[in-house]
C-alpha cells in the first residue's frame, strides 16, 4: 500500500519564497539592485527633495516619496524580470511545473519573494525620512503612508515584471516588455488630457502614478487608491498565471 500523501501547497510556496530570497541575498544581482536603488534615492533626495533653498519638511518628504517611487518601480521590474525567464532559460521550470503546486501558486510564490526583497530594500532607505523627522517637523503617519504607497506601486511593478518574465525566455527582453507596459501606464495621465468625456476619465484612472500615488506622497491613505494598486497587481498576476498555464497547451 502506498504511503504517499498529498503535499501542502503552503509549504511548497514557502519553500520557493525561501529559495528566491536566498538567491537575491546570495548573488551579486540582489546587492547591485539594492545598491543602485539606495544610491539613486540618496542622490535624488539630496539634489531635488532637499534642494538648495529652505523648504517645509512635509514638502521635502513628499518630494522624497515622489522620486523614490521611480527607483522603486525600476527595482520592482529588475527584481521580477528573472523570476520565470531564468527558470525557462536554465531548463529548471519543469521542476516546479511537475510539482504539486498549481501554476497560480508558483506565480504567487515568485511574486512574494520579489515583494519581500523589495520591502527589505525599501527598509534600507528609511534613514532619509528619519533625517527629515529628526531635523524637521513631520508626522509618522506621513512616513507610513508614503512607504505604503511605495510598497503598493512596487507590488504593481513586480506583477508587471513577472508577467514580462512569463512571456519571454530572456530576462533582458522581459525587462523591456515590463518597462514598456509600465511607461504606457505611467503616461496615461497625458493621454487622458487629450481624450474627452468618460473615456478620458477611465484612461486617467488607469494611470499608474498620477492620481493614485500623489495622495500617498502627501501622507493620505485612501481605500480606493489601495484597491487600485492591488487590482493592478492581481490583474498582472492572473495574466502571468494564464501565460504559464497556456504553456501546458502549447509546448
Amino acid at each position, binding site marked *: 500500500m502506498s504511503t*504517499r500523501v498529498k*503535499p501542502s501547497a503552503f509549504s*511548497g510556496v514557502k519553500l520557493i519564497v525561501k529559495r528566491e530570497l536566498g538567491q537575491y541575498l546570495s548573488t551579486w544581482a540582489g546587492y547591485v539592485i539594492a545598491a543602485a536603488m539606495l544610491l539613486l534615492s540618496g542622490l535624488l533626495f539630496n539634489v531635488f527633495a532637499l534642494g538648495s533653498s529652505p523648504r517645509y519638511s512635509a514638502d521635502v518628504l513628499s518630494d522624497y516619496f515622489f522620486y523614490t517611487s521611480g527607483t522603486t518601480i525600476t527595482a520592482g521590474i529588475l527584481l521580477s524580470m528573472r523570476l520565470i525567464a531564468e527558470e525557462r532559460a536554465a531548463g529548471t521550470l519543469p*521542476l516546479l511545473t511537475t510539482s*504539486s503546486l498549481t501554476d497560480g501558486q508558483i506565480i504567487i510564490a515568485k511574486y512574494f519573494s520579489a515583494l519581500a526583497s523589495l520591502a527589505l530594500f525599501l527598509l534600507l532607505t528609511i534613514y532619509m525620512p528619519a533625517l527629515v523627522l529628526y531635523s524637521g517637523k513631520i508626522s509618522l503617519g506621513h512616513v507610513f503612508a508614503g512607504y505604503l504607497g511605495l510598497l503598493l506601486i512596487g507590488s504593481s511593478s513586480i506583477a508587471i515584471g513577472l508577467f514580462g518574465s512569463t512571456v519571454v525566455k530572456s530576462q533582458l527582453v522581459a525587462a523591456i516588455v515590463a518597462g514598456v507596459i509600465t511607461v504606457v501606464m505611467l503616461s496615461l495621465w497625458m493621454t487622458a488630457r487629450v481624450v474627452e468625456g468618460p473615456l478620458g476619465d477611465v484612461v486617467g484612472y488607469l494611470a499608474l502614478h498620477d492620481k493614485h500615488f500623489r495622495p500617498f506622497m502627501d501622507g493620505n491613505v485612501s481605500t480606493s487608491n489601495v484597491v487600485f494598486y492591488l487590482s493592478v497587481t492581481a490583474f498582472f498576476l492572473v495574466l502571468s498565471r494564464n501565460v504559464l498555464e497556456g504553456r501546458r497547451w502549447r*509546448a
Partner: protein
Amino acid sequence: MIRTESLTKFYGTRCAVRDLSVSIADHEIVGFLGLNGAGKTTALRMLAGLLAPSSGKIEVEGRDLGGEHAEDVRWRIGFLPDRPPLYDDMTVRGYLAFAAQLRGFDEAKVPRRVDEVLELTSLGQYADEVISHLSHGYRQRAGIAQAVIHDPALVILDEPTSGLDPVQILEMRKLIRDLKAQHTVLLSSHNLPEISQTCDRLLVIRDGQLVATGSEADLSHKLGSGAKVELELVGGGEAVEAALAKAKAANLISAYGKEQKDGAWQVQATLQTGPEVLAKACIEGGLGLRRLQPLATELESLFLELTKA
C-alpha cells in the same frame, strides 16, 4: 496502474501524437522507441503532466491527470526531461532536499531520504559538491535523483543516457534497472541496445502513432523473422552439431550457422522460443555455454523495419 486512452496532441494543425492507448503495469520498465520527431518526447511530457493533451485521457494509479486537480496527480510522477532541471548554484544534497520538500516529502524524513537516493544513484561522494561542478554523467544522475526523491509511483526518463560515455551508459542501465524495485519506469532513448537490455517492453512509435508493442523477441516474432542470437559454446564439433540439430528439430530455432574460433564454437541462430530455453537445451546436451546475446544488427533491422515510413 498507468493507462492512456486515445491520447492525442496537436501543435496547430500538425498532429504530434495520435490515439495513443497504452497500459503499463506496476514495476514495469517500458521503453519508447522511435525516430526523431516521432512523438516520444511529446508523449512523455503529456504523461508527466507538463503538456496538456488535445484529447484523450491519462490515468495514474486510477486518478485522472487531465482532471480539474491535475496537481494532485503530478506529484505521484517523477520526471527527468531531456535537459535535467538542476539549480547550478545548489549543492547536490541541498537540491535534492529542495526537490523532496517541493513534492511534499515529510520535512523530518527528508535528510534520510536524501541519503537513500544519494546511495541509489551513487552520488554520495558528490553530495556536498555544487551542481555546476558536476560532470555530464553525474548531472544526469542528479536529474534521476530528483525524479525519484519523493518516491513517486511512476518515473519518466527522457533520453537518460544522452551524451554519456560507454561506462556511464552501463552504470545508468544498472541504475534504471534498480529503480524497478520501487517504481514503474517509462523511458525513451535512441540507444537501441539500452532500450532492449533495460526495458521489459518496448512501445514503438512512428509519426505519433503506436505501431508495435512487446518485448524485442515478441516484436521479432510478430514481424516473422525471429530474434537472432549469438552463442559461444564449448564442446566437441559433433556434440555441438547434434545439440543444434536437436534444437532445430524441437523447433527451438529455425536456422543456425557455426564456426570454430579461439577453442570455442561461435553459433548464430534464429530463435523460435525464448533464449533461456535454448540455453537450457545446450547445457543439457553436455555443452558449455560461455555467452548468449542478441545480435545488435538484428535489433537495428527490427528498429528500421518498425519505424520506416
